[in-house]
């Protein structure tokens, strides 16, 4: 295994982890704290990680577990499968999205319910498959699919509202 240098790993993954943390906490200071704690855990306990290709997933999973540990979300958000029936997505033209400011789209994401924000962030920003998302978040595949579906509905509705004010 190639030696993983601290600076290299931090530089390579800080943006990913910070954005993921922000999508979970909606708070910059907490996101910074979670990101630092994740790199700290990697530096001090990640020695068992022999496969460097799994580093990114390991970091995301660790960050999410830290988040849950901090907030004791395990009790507050029981992992129950909810209906997979999808409502129709709110209409939102690609053209409209293209004209929106990136910060405004991020703002919309941060307004999505917490339980759906994490899978959305991993799906859109990290290009993670639903299988990988299930692995990182430690929830069943069906739960990921339903959270993605409901999250997308909510995100587009919020984006539509924001776009109507701005555009």
């Amino acid at each position, binding site marked *: *295994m*190639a*030696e*993983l*240098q*601290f*600076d290299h*790993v*931090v*530089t390579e993954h*800080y*943006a990913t982890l*910070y*954005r993921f943390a922000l999508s979970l906490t909606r708070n*910059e*200071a907490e996101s*910074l*704290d979670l*990101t*630092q*704690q994740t*790199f*700290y855990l*990697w*530096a*001090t*306990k*990640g*020695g*068992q*990680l022999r496969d460097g290709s799994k580093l990114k997933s390991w970091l995301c999973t660790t960050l999410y577990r830290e988040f849950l540990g901090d907030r004791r979300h395990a009790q507050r958000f029981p992992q129950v499968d909810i209906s997979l029936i*999808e409502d129709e*997505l709110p209409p*939102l*033209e*690609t053209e409209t*999205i*293209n004209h*929106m*400011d*990136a*910060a405004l*789209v*991020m703002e919309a*994401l941060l307004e999505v319910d917490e339980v759906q924000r994490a899978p959305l962030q991993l*799906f*859109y*920003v990290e*290009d993670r*498959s*639903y299988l990988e998302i299930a692995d990182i978040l430690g929830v069943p*595949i069906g739960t*990921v*699919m339903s959270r*993605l*579906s409901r999250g*997308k509905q909510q*995100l*587009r509705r919020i*984006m539509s509202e924001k776009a109507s004010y701005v555009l």
Partner: protein
Amino acid sequence: MACRPNGADANDPRLAGALALVQRDAELRAWFEAEQDADAAIAIKLKAAPLPEGLLEQIRVGTQARIAMWRQASLPEVEGGILPPGIASASQSEFDPADAPISAEFFPQGWKPGFTAAKDGRRYSLTLALAACFALLGLIAALWLNHTPNAAPGSFAAYRTDMAQLVREFPKLDIATDRLPEVRQWLSQQHPLMKADLPKALEQFPSIGCRTVEWRGKKLALVCFMVEGQVVHLFVMPRNTFPDAGSSATPTFANVGSQNTASWGSNDNQYLLVTQADQAVLQKLL
């Protein structure tokens, strides 16, 4: 809906049925393509969302601070500290930098990351047993310290002990920043009596961040600094909080458990420095 817009899921067997249906139905295909376009546009926007200025440096410094504290607490031979869970000592010959997730020079001389011990199961078990013994000894020592007659509740000595206990592990911060003007501004907002006059020698080192702490109903400020690779915590309280703290501007040094402290008064503030580093580090700052 779980199909990524970059086409990476085209061969996923779980989605194959739905994708085949999309191909057969023109109306469904048009809808699906519009959905994928919208998803792609959202992904592009979210990936382009700006990050806070100086974020990388803040993360780097903050993480190094945590590692430095962990490292200071993990020096069994050098400092006589207690081994953290899962960490064991190993001989120099066993250390393989390729096994370390961070570069070897990041660790102090004379200390080796313990996870290399996994190469030898028996030795690993032995070191784990040793670690457990150390932990047990630590627990006994902690219990003994707790039963030792302590300073009067609410006294400066009690405050010093409690603050040293608080920062045995890296504390959560309200603001993480290596920019001192932000620390000053934050500090001055926390209490009308708290003037933002930080010790001059500390100002040359990068801050890590700051937070407020409630102690016996009193609000105080904590500012963390990185000093030559070691974490130093500065507590600031209004001076009139502790009648027994004395009025001297001359620092008083004290050892609290495994931590070194220095305290002094200046203007309206009472300062307390706490670190796991040597007292010499504190003396340099005063």
